């Protein structure tokens, strides 16, 4: 897929439902500067979703899709869980894998895309819940990192199996009592960000999705680093408001409370040395682009 292929046949344009016409005319495909601020202005790559009202995961989904640097050349790999309810509505190529298999599927996919399209950036982004990433799919997750597969793994961490009624997961915090885990978690939350770092990930972030500009930054960093250097991992807190006894309007506050400095989702970031160099290079290019845009604007103003 490329931007040139996202075109409706001229003769049949008028019969296409309006949302497809809008997607072609007003979406942000091909716009390198796209970001979360396009939400509400440009045609979004996800508008409707079938998640619960007020679900923080739906916010996270929107921010991520708005922040992908290259959506027309990105394939997302999902897994079983609440995320799989959203993928059918997403205007980005995506694959639903078996529960836990997502990083293995993404490995093969990324390699195949690299062979098939040697001259083009093809990004692969895994998006799965904590059950798929840390419990059922931990083997596949780690092996992909050990092999230095060049794609991004995003874990929507809601700290339990929300979709099936609230069973205990490895990322659940110690002592938490869930509907289907009445005894309470007896051991600590698995420290996957640290494991990711030790397993060879070049960029690791642990945070909530309360701040869209932060999410935009980490998504762009993660995808760019994965594209050039090696695996990256983002662990994003997307609490299940139903399973922790909150109301629809309380998801944002829950995330804010959980990202305080002493809390488990206080912002943590690890960047490897090669990744640091790449980010510095990209920042310099961005600075140059902005300066150039400013110069052009100034010259236009003088002309006027």
């Amino acid at each position, binding site marked *: 897929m490329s931007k040139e*292929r*996202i*075109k*409706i*046949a*001229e*003769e*049949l344009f008028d*019969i*296409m*439902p309006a949302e*497809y016409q809008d997607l072609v005319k007003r979406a942000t495909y091909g716009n390198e500067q796209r970001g979360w601020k396009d939400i509400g202005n440009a045609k979004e790559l996800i508008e*409707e979703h*079938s998640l619960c009202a007020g679900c923080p995961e739906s916010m996270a989904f929107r921010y991520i899709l708005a922040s992908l640097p290259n959506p027309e050349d990105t394939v997302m790999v999902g897994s079983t869980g609440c995320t799989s309810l959203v993928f*059918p*509505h997403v205007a980005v190529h995506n694959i639903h894998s078996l529960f836990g298999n997502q990083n293995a599927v993404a490995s093969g996919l990324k390699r195949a895309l690299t062979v098939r399209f040697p001259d083009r950036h093809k990004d692969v982004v895994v998006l799965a819940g904590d059950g798929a990433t840390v419990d059922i799919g931990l083997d596949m997750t780690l092996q992909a990192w050990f092999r230095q597969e060049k794609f991004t793994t995003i874990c929507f961490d809601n700290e339990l199996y929300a979709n099936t009624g609230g069973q205990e997961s490895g990322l659940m915090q110690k002592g938490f009592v869930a509907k289907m885990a009445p005894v309470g978690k007896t051991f600590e939350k698995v420290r996957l960000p640290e494991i990711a770092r030790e397993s060879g990930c070049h960029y690791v972030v642990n945070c909530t999705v309360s701040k869209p500009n932060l999410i935009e930054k980490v998504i762009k960093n993660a995808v760019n680093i994965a594209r050039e250097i090696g695996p990256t991992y983002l662990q994003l807190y997307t609490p299940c408001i139903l399973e922790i006894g909150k109301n629809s309007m309380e998801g944002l506050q829950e995330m804010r409370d959980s990202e305080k400095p002493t809390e488990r989702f206080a912002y943590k970031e690890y960047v490897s040395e090669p990744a640091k160099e790449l980010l510095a290079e990209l920042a310099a290019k961005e600075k140059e682009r902005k300066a150039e845009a400013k110069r052009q604007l100034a010259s236009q103003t003088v002309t006027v």
Partner: protein
Amino acid sequence: MTTSYRVMPGPEHFLPPSAASMGVRLPDPGQGHIHGSIVSEEEALEEAARQFLSAKVPTIFPGPLVLWAWNDKAAKKAKAIRHLYETIKECVDSSCQQAMLIPMPDYRPKYPKINPEIEINPNHPNLTIWHNKIDACMFVGVHCHQANLSLKIIRGGTNCYTIAMCAQAGHEDAMLSVRDATADKIIRLADWVKKLKGSVTPPVKH
């Protein structure tokens, strides 16, 4: 293998058998099938034109393979489909017939539901058929597995006559199918519609 089974307009029943399982076979290159009987391609095109001309709501359902301009071939086919639609519109009796061109833009089920006036979805194609009272339709540019799904649902729950203009090997589950569809073949069908104009009895006026 011969079979007495005929792929006829339904409603057959809730879960109609796949025509292949009943012994209906696909046509070879240069052939088509009508109700499961192998005929020449020209014969199939002629019969498809007759079906369009005798239906109250003859409809074309273009799918993603022609709705999107993936390549020049797809764009050419889209042009040919538009030509066919305009030809049908021109050749039917507008006082009792209404030609339609309704896209199948997506295979994904839509929430909360599709708008049957403007699109068709392979997971419940019957909604669009019922809503618009479509009695003859042609699938073109729809991936085979989705076309098979739709054709079976339509045969199961509606009395619509189905035609498959397939770019591959044809469809047993359609009442009439042509294989190896190209833009030229679609234009040949339009030529048949023009040629038969006036010679086919239009539906009874109400």
